């Protein structure tokens, strides 16, 4: 996600780390680097200024210069400050009214309609009765777009009548929702510039006339310095209650998130990580701060793995692995589970250390990984059940047959068997470890290794 910022900061800290103690001079250097990195990350200049000033104050004020590992202390300061800036904890929508209402606001093309679809689906999954309201009366096919997305999400949709104003539609939708027992109403509005007074008034009216408690600004993660002025105006005129950051599947450094969060004080409720309806994730400020500082997003990765992977299957496999009975059948299942985890690039984005790898390299490595697992899958599928259970049976003649059957080369079959052996060896080590450690700790280990 925030690759380049991570890279710049890592570079700074690497230089700092080499030194036993920090001099005022290198604090200054480091802060200059941090400042440059944040600006290049599109953090608003005033936010950067305040941020750097605060960090400087803390670093100078305390006994950091004489402490044992000043470099690490410095990192911690920057990290803590960044985390505070991003907001402390996960915040939910305001659900105090029934039906609860959400108005989506923002510039053109940021992802309001798509996110309306994603939220509709999410609330529907919670068992709520959802109404999506298409309030974009200007852009060609905007209402049609929402209609398609609402259908995908399996929720109802209301569009404007010919000649109807946004305000009138809002009121009609509100009444309709009350009358028909909807739990959630989401108003998708058309894109507008914050400097377009007339159009901003239109959504200000909509928010007040519908009495919606949730007024959400949608922001493109790649947005530049004007993010602050956009957020300030929408906040003044509509009283924002939350932010949603979209397109985090790109490689934008995402300074807009820091900026808008710190200027409006509104929490970031969710993040968008793709075009599909399931690409909506909760926002965790602490993880984001870790990520910015190059610590990777291991927790997200583990959690993603847990929701996507069949838990029972994993438990069964874990047992077999520890009992030393792992065979190629299990290996195949493992490959298939991995596939479910989604795109390798997405996973790699969450892994520590990966920020040093460029987007292209990542894409390439992911592609290679995918081709390889596809190949492995094909090879195992060309084996007989007996071969899968007892891989030691696979002699060179069988290897030739399997290679021909799966459209691969004998070398590929050898690669697979080698990798399988390595995995087996690993699990044996784990087993020994487990024996020495006792059940509970080993389970914990195993879990954290997934």
């Amino acid at each position, binding site marked *: 996600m925030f690759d380049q910022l991570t890279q710049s900061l890592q570079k700074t800290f690497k230089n700092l780390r080499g030194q036993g103690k920090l001099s005022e001079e290198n604090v200054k250097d480091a802060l200059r680097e941090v400042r440059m990195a944040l600006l290049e990350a599109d953090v608003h200049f005033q936010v950067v200024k305040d941020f750097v000033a605060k960090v400087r104050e803390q670093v100078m004020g305390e006994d950091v210069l004489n402490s044992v590992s000043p470099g690490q202390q410095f990192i911690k300061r920057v990290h803590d400050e960044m985390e505070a800036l991003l907001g402390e904890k996960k915040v939910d929508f305001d659900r105090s009214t029934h039906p609860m209402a959400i108005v989506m606001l923002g510039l*053109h093309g940021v992802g309001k309609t798509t996110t309306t679809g994603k939220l509709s689906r999410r609330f529907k999954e919670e068992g709520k009765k959802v109404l999506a309201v298409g309030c974009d009366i200007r852009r060609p*096919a905007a209402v049609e*777009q929402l209609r398609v997305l609402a259908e995908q999400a399996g929720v109802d949709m209301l569009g404007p009548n010919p000649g109807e104003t946004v305000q009138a539609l809002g009121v009609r939708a509100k009444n309709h929702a009350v009358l028909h027992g909807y739990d959630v109403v989401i108003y998708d509005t058309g894109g507008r*510039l914050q400097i377009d007074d007339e159009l901003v008034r239109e959504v200000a009216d909509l928010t007040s006339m519908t009495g919606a408690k949730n007024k959400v600004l949608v922001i493109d993660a790649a947005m530049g*310095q004007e993010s602050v002025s*956009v957020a300030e105006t929408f906040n003044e005129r509509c009283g924002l209650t939350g932010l949603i950051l979209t397109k985090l*599947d790109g490689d934008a*450094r995402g300074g807009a998130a820091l900026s808008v969060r710190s200027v409006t004080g509104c929490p970031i409720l969710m993040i968008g990580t793709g*075009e599909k309806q399931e690409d909506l994730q909760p926002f965790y400020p602490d993880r984001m701060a870790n990520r910015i500082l190059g610590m990777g997003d291991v927790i997200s990765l583990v959690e993603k793995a847990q929701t996507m992977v069949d838990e029972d299957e994993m438990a069964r496999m874990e047992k077999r692995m520890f009992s030393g009975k792992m065979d190629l059948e299990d290996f195949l299942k493992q490959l298939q589970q991995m596939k479910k985890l989604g795109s390798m690039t997405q996973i790699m984005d969450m892994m520590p250390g990966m920020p040093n790898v460029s987007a292209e390299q990542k894409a390439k490595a992911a592609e290679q990984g995918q081709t390889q697992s596809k190949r492995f899958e094909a090879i195992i599928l060309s084996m007989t059940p007996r071969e899968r259970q007892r891989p030691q049976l696979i002699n060179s003649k069988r290897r030739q047959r399997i290679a021909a059957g799966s459209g691969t080369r004998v070398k590929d079959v050898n690669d697979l068997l080698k990798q399988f052996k390595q995995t087996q060896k690993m699990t044996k080590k784990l087993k020994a470890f487990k024996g020495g450690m006792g059940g509970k700790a080993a389970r914990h280990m195993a879990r954290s290794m997934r």
Partner: protein
Amino acid sequence: MVSWVQALKKTRNVFASAIQGVISDGAEIDELTLEQLEVALIRADLPPRLVAELISDLEENQLHGTQPPKEVLRDGLRARLVMQETDPFDFGVKPACILLLGVNGAGKTTTCAKLAHRAADMDRKVLLGAADTFRAAGTEQLRLWGERLNAPVVSGRQGSDASAVAFDAMDAAHARGMDLLFIDTAGRMHTKSHLMEELRKMVRAIQKRDPEAPHGTWMILDASLGQNSLNQAKIFHDAVPLTGLVITKLDGSSKAGFLFNVHQQLPGIPVLFTGLGEQAEDLVRFDADAFVEGLLSLGSGTGDD
């Protein structure tokens, strides 16, 4: 048609005072004004490292130079921009096929409509290809524009193969004796390699009909974005070599200063047009002087919004 200057007038003149103080001829530059100037340029999304360079040029000039600071800055910026003097619609072949590319929501479909409108105004026969078969109602959006503008549109069903639509559009453009074919593509995040590969596939499909095509590959860049625009452009350029840029949404308050970085890293790709609104007529030729003037906000000191 909205003029550039009119559109800029809509823009709140955020740093006019800061810069005007500095760049009025013969003004003294002290630490404070230099800092203000730096802030103004940063706020215009100029790459921070270029800003540092420009500031040190100004300092240098103050010590040794004779040129007024206003001109130093303006010339420094102007010299870095690339525009094209000749008619961007003139390819010397018929039909000429232009592919519109970019990340999600940049303004490709709207720009496609604007280009059709402009080309028709110049008496060119235009066909539109709706090759965004992915996004909900992506095709429908361009079809509606086509109806409004009276321009024919070749489209496929949602979920169908975009390359097939592109090929069909090429076919139709030949068969119907069109001058220009603009192909609208789906928004794609540059980080998704399979989507970038799809783009290359689309190019190969077009080339089956005409090996010289596409005659133009224009990337649409959203002015409100920041420094990431460079990475977007680089990766798109790697996938399909770009021949032109269009900057959209310049009617907003953002100044698209990232463009200097794009020019520096991908030399020689001219900015052809700028989008200044949501309507078909809100497209003007890129004007480097006006762009720099806009950056420096330069609202000629009238002080109105």
